[in-house]
């Protein structure tokens, strides 16, 4: 690597950061150095620890809840909350924008930082200053316009204007262009460059490698909670070389023995969707799934690889009884015959099961016990005449507890107290009990430890061996490669590729997943 031309002048140093959650080490000994006035990109797969690191930095996880130290301009700092870090000029803009849709642009910019004397807001000053800030980000809007009426791209700019109003010196952008179209992205990246000229240091978390190659001065790659390397983007190598190196850093992990072996015996087609379109429920101009077609055969494990925001979950949930989105069009067929699925019970009736990526929010009734969670979706089977056979119910729950090896004191234990892996097995049991033909698994191993992952993989293999069709959504490439027979890649709502897992490489998939198709 060539020697950097400019002087070492770190604005931020994070040293040996280790952050543990119960049962999981999210960050282990991560170090990050950001030079003053640079654009520093952070890359990594979903769940690699990028967001956790930024939360540590911004004080969302207060000092003391992690190990290691943070130096800001050479001096150690300990933030106990987001207000502390903002006072020092560190502002984080999350992927999900934190704007209040019904308040005006100016009100949003100065939210929490109101321009007031003695508690009385000076509206004139608020609006005038808002216009000044908006000019800096290249936004020409009336400051009294409600934010909700503007597009996502403009909202993103308002977030940046808001950051500027706080005298930001270190701006952190989490996936800033994930929801933007090409023009808006281009404008945003230009703005980030301009800010660099004004002396604002920028950390940008992004999946879009083309973007990173275009805008970043250096890039840190994080994988599995550890820093892999920091690349100088001006070291003379071509963008292709750099991108390849980043991809290698993001995915290169030992895949041996992670995935159990399986005999593949593929049968007839079970499930197929054609020309599937889904529109965002609140943003009518945003097509989230754009003409997707795919099929799954009996005994086959098919992967959908896509990064966050690619429309994976939206695709699955819209198929599963129209649980997400509006203006859903396209056809669903089971066994080659088109079926009408209007709601979740229709989907269950047709033998479709969907295991959500967010088990606490969408999968489990946390305050209920294992038994009742297991039977929640297939309760009708226990109650042919309307009342539940309570003893049979316990027997059913016991059966799944032992066959899926759910570690809980009994089937009457409340699921809230179980570990992530065991909770996931409870959700799996719930759907297995409905005897589905197609099982859609959305990030089935998110937030669970390696041992439990292996068990989940084994269960998936057994199900496939029993002739079920399985659709696995995952952003972890090794998982997709290790588990699936065939893989579709999804990028910004479109299927950008269909590859045989035996021939696929992580690099090849990542390229398809980050492909930015024309709109």
């Amino acid at each position, binding site marked *: 690597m060539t020697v950097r031309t400019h002087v070492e002048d770190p604005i931020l140093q994070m040293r040996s950061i280790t952050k543990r959650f119960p049962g999981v080490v999210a960050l282990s000994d991560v170090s990050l150095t950001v030079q003053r006035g640079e654009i520093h990109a952070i890359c990594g797969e979903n769940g690699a620890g990028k967001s956790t690191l930024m939360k540590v930095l911004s004080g969302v996880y207060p000092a003391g809840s992690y190990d290691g130290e943070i130096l800001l301009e050479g001096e150690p700092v300990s933030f106990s909350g987001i207000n502390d870090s903002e006072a020092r000029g560190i502002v984080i803009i999350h992927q999900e924008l934190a704007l209040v849709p019904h308040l005006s642009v100016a009100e949003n910019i100065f939210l929490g930082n109101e321009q007031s004397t003695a508690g009385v807001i000076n509206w004139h000053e608020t609006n005038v200053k808002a216009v000044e800030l908006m000019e800096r980000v290249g936004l020409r809007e009336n400051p009294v316009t409600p934010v909700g009426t503007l597009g996502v791209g403009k909202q993103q700019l308002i977030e940046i204007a808001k950051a500027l109003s706080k005298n930001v010196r270190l701006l952190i952008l989490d996936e800033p262009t994930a929801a933007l179209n090409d023009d808006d992205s281009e404008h945003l990246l230009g703005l980030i460059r301009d800010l660099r000229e004004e002396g604002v240091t920028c950390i940008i978390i992004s999946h879009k490698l083309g973007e990173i190659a275009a805008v970043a001065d250096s890039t840190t790659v994080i994988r599995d909670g550890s820093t892999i390397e920091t690349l100088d983007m001006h070291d003379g190598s071509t963008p292709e070389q750099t991108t390849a190196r980043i991809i290698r850093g993001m995915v290169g992990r030992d895949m041996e023995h992670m995935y159990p072996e399986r005999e593949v015996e593929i049968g007839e087609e079970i499930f197929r969707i054609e020309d599937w379109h889904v529109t965002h429920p609140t943003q009518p101009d945003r097509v989230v799934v754009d003409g997707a077609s795919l099929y799954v055969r009996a005994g086959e494990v098919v992967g959908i690889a896509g990064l966050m925001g690619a429309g994976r979950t939206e695709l699955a949930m819209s198929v599963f009884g129209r649980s997400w989105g509006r203006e859903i069009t396209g056809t669903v067929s089971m066994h080659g015959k088109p079926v009408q699925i209007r709601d979740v019970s229709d989907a269950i009736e047709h033998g479709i099961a969907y295991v959500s990526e967010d088990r606490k929010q*969408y999968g489990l009734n*946390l305050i*209920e016990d294992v038994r009742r969670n297991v039977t929640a979706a297939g309760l009708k089977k226990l109650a042919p005449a309307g009342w539940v056979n309570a003893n049979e119910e316990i027997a059913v729950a016991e059966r799944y507890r032992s066959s899926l090896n759910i570690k809980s004191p009994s089937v009457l234990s409340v699921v809230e107290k179980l570990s992530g892996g065991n909770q996931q097995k409870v959700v799996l049991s719930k759907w297995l009990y409905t005897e589905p033909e197609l099982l859609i698994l959305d990030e089935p191993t998110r937030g669970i430890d390696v041992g439990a992952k292996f068990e989940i993989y084994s269960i998936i293999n057994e199900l496939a061996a029993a002739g079920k069709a399985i659709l696995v959504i995952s952003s972890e490439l090794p998982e997709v490669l290790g588990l699936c027979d065939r893989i579709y890649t999804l990028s910004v709502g479109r299927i950008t590729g269909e590859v045989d897992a035996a021939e696929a490489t992580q690099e090849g998939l990542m390229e398809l997943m980050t492909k930015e198709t024309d709109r």
Partner: protein
Amino acid sequence: MVAFTGAVSAVVVIREGMPWWVGVLAALITGALVGVWQGFWVAVVGIPAFIVTLAGMLIFRGLTMQTLDNVSLSPFPSEYQYIAGGFLNGLLGGPGYDVFTLVIGALAAVGFAWSQWRNRMRKLEYRQPVEALWLFAVRVLLVAAIIMAFAWRLANARGTPVVLILLAALVLLYGFVTQRTVFGRHIYAMGGNLQAAKLSGVKTRRVNFLLFINMGLLAAVAGIVYSARSNSAQPGAGFMFELDAIAAAFIGGAAVTGGVGKVQGAIIGGLIMAVMSNGMQIMGIDQSTQNVVRGVVLVLAVAFDVWNKKRATADR
């Protein structure tokens, strides 16, 4: 709604001179219709239940006043009063005590023992752990003894109150519905995690709608009993009942966040509230003080629930 259904029944029975059971039927139908109205706004249109209930309180209070022309209607015929104030007595005669009441008590005790025994047998059939036989016997005998002792007291007083039978029937019915039926399960599932319930195929709107109709029916039952007990339908009947009901539910172990609580709990909560009010009434405590005490009890009950939950989370 308690007042409204009571008023409707009063108009039918007292003003129109219809038999008592027509009044009861009219009240129940009115209750169900009110439930349909409320359920429509909540489950179909999607207005927050709190707002709909608040609006409903105003609407039906107003309609009560119109129905009654702002005066109380009384008295009800004695058959009607019998629902709330009557006793089943002397049906089988008896020397100084009511045999019929004892028979009812004995039936309840035997019924309890039999259902417990059946349950135990079923559990054994499914190879589930059961308590030791002697423990089982002692428990069943103890409960049976309590039931019989209670029946003995009643038999020596005025016999079996009709309301008690009504209450027992409701408790059994709702206990069964909430604990043993698919519908009941869906209610708990929705309370525990609405999103997860939806994604498990629970038709949440339909369940919500039916629940409101059910609430309407129950309010009608309360309206009938209340009007029969006070032997009149008053424009101001059932005032602040909603708070007593909320208090009863919370004291009985329901949670603000939903998804927990049982019929038995609510009954216990209701009994505590009622005994407290009644006791204070008998002691001659000032109405204003009574309100303060009831309010404090409600806050404490919910505070206990919140505190309990915090502790449970801290445990993990």
